[in-house]
């Protein structure tokens, strides 16, 4: 078991240490950086943290928290236990703040890179959506902003809060202060600490007691959703008896000038609440040799804090040069359920180290893990999963299914399942398979009139069905096409 990443789960009390309340010295020096400046200078120090906080007009508690995180970060080392390789990152050579930039506005789609357009076509992305993604001016009627406005008023009727993290910090500070860092404390790991110190923006969701969110909450509909920057922070709170399904990302290829992305997502599900979180991640993976691709180092964790609560993660990962993320669930409430459904595709020189952690604390807690890795080209795809059954977790059950699909013979798939069970009444099942799409299979398909590209899509969709079925319908269709596009030219 790796020891570099630590939980702050206190097994004896079954409690999460909300925040490691280390003494925080008040900052003794005045804040000097010019507030009008649009870019913070390169590098990271306390002044930069203050600058970011001031720019965002944050309340005192937020700044203090950021500073504590920053000071803690200074004591930490970058983790290296993942099965990925990359040149060292110089953290003093990055910009940690840039004012949200205006996108370049194009007059029509003809000005868009034809290669990008071809990909959009293949993904079946509508013209309006294409315009939105590439920054072409959109007609007033179909403007996503107006859609989002009607959408917001519907949510407001139910008392649902769905806004950017920056807005939440200003307008709902009591909620933010109560919950931020309660699931992923800044002490959690190197990148979580960094994110806590300098997070740029992200989403905030609060579903009040007894409310079933009437629609999928998608980042797409959140004004200011784009340009959340490289240190995204998302917080979702589902109060008692509530339900929400949240969608992050989109299937269209996402380019970004920042190479390092270190996001944090926290979910809290109270008694009887259910949260479904679906992601499609399609960051730029770099060229064939991985040059210029994005490093995506994410900490995602949910806590089923109340009895009978449920958190379900579904992810389709096709992008980034390097990905490591382990959406996890802490099953604290009795009878709570955690689920993880994942498809992770790597092609060319991509590297992915993903998986999940299911931490069973309460009685009769159940978790289910379905991980489908697809490796093509000379990529490396690792599954890393931890199932931990605590002492009090009587009758806890886990089922894990970890499959790998290899395309060709230059790629790699690796599985690292870890199990720590300290309750004898627990049942844990693990199944794993590895299959390969070789020339034989493709020739067989060809011989039946099915082209190689279609054969790959057919096989991959069959292979991923169980995960795709978890996605909201429209999203699933797009995600299927995305898989096909990501694997284009990977075989034959």
């Amino acid at each position, binding site marked *: 078991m790796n020891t570099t990443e630590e939980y702050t789960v206190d097994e004896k009390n079954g409690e999460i240490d909300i925040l490691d309340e280390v003494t925080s010295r008040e900052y003794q020096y005045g804040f000097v950086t010019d507030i009008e400046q649009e870019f913070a200078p390169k590098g990271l120090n306390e002044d930069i943290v203050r600058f970011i906080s001031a720019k965002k007009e944050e309340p005192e508690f937020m700044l203090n928290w950021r500073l504590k995180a920053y000071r803690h970060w200074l004591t930490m080392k970058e983790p290296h236990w993942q099965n990925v390789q990359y040149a060292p990152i110089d953290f003093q050579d990055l910009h940690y703040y840039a004012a949200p930039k205006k996108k370049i506005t194009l007059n029509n789609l003809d000005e868009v890179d034809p290669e990008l357009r071809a990909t959009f076509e293949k993904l079946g992305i509508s013209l309006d959506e294409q315009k939105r993604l590439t920054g072409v001016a959109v007609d007033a009627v179909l403007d996503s902003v107006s859609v989002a406005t009607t959408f917001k008023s519907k949510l407001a009727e139910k008392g649902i809060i769905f806004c950017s993290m920056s807005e939440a910090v200003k307008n709902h500070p009591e909620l933010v202060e109560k919950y931020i860092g309660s699931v992923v404390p800044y002490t959690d790991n190197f990148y979580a600490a960094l994110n806590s110190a300098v997070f740029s923006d992200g989403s905030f969701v609060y579903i009040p007691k007894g409310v079933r969110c009437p629609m999928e909450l998608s980042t797409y509909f959140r004004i200011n959703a784009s340009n959340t920057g490289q240190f995204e922070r998302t917080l979702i709170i589902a109060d008692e008896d509530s339900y929400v399904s949240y969608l992050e990302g989109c299937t269209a290829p996402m380019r970004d000038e920042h190479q390092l992305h270190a996001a944090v997502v926290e979910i809290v599900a109270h008694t009887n609440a259910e949260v479904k979180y679906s992601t499609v991640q399609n960051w730029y993976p770099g060229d064939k040799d991985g040059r210029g691709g994005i490093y995506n180092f994410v900490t995602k964790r949910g806590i089923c804090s109340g009895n009978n609560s449920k958190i379900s993660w579904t992810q389709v990962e096709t992008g980034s040069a390097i990905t490591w993320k382990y959406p996890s669930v802490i099953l604290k409430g009795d009878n709570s359920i955690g689920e993880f459904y994942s498809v992770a595709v790597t092609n060319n020189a991509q590297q992915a180290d993903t998986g999940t952690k299911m931490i069973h604390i309460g009685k009769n807690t159940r978790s289910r893990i379905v991980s489908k890795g697809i490796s093509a080209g000379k990529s490396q795809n690792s599954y890393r999963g931890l199932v931990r059954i605590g002492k009090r977790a009587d009758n806890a059950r886990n089922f894990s299914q970890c499959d790998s699909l290899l395309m060709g013979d230059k790629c790699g798939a690796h599985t690292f399942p870890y199990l720590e069970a300290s309750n004898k009444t627990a049942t844990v099942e693990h199944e794993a*398979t590895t*299959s390969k799409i070789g*020339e*034989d*299979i493709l*020739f*067989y*398909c*060809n*011989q*039946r*009139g*099915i*082209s*190689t590209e*279609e054969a790959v899509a*057919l*096989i991959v969709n*069959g*292979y991923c*069905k169980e995960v795709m079925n978890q996605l909201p319908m429209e999203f699933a269709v797009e995600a299927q096409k995305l898989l096909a596009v990501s694997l284009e030219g990977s075989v034959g």
Partner: protein
Amino acid sequence: MLRIHDLRVSVAGKEILQGINLEINPGETHAIMGPNGSGKSTLASVLAGRADYEVLGGEVSFMGKDLLDLAPEDRAREGLFLAFQYPVEIPGVSNANFLKAAVNEVRKYRGQEPLDAMEFLALMKDKAKLVEMDPSMLSRSLNEGFSGGEKKRNEIFQMAMLEPVLAILDETDSGLDIDALRIVAEGVNKLQNEHRSVVLITHYQRLLNYIVPDHVHVLYKGRIVKSGGKELALELEEKGYDWIKNEVAQAAV
């Protein structure tokens, strides 16, 4: 329909087919026999367009087109079908889904509308009956965990679904039990008509009792060294290949 002229093929630098000549007319049934390793499967694979083979020379025309110029999927869409000696397993893809993709691809190529789910299901039920295939096999992953005989029967079921103009059956009889052999052979007979031809690659006469060939060829060391009518197969059954091998050796002197 199919004309092979002086076809020479090598695999991994070794010349396996050393000048094959063969002509197949619509409605005909040909049997290709010959000792192990003589090149029968190689011939079938080359015709179907498998990548590992290098064509050194010769021509093949199929339905008036240059076969060797077509991509493997286009050969299939033109109506060439190969029942594999060793069918592959495709986990996660049901037999039905696989065939739906295949049938609709072929239809698209021919300018026909794709079949909807209901039409496809009806067709599948109909064809499953033809080879007496258990309907539960249709929803299972393609060939996954199928017994040897079940795989062979599934090949002929696929042939029934795709209605090829030229079907090459590579040792479809091996692995089938006595009853299954009869059922599958009857299925093949029902699929044949004056426009459709069949090539049977086999080691045994018993298949030819059910599917009676118009022509029998002996492939030996990459050449067709003897051709005849159905009685040639009987003669081989009785005498083995030694007399043919001797004839070839004599001719070479």
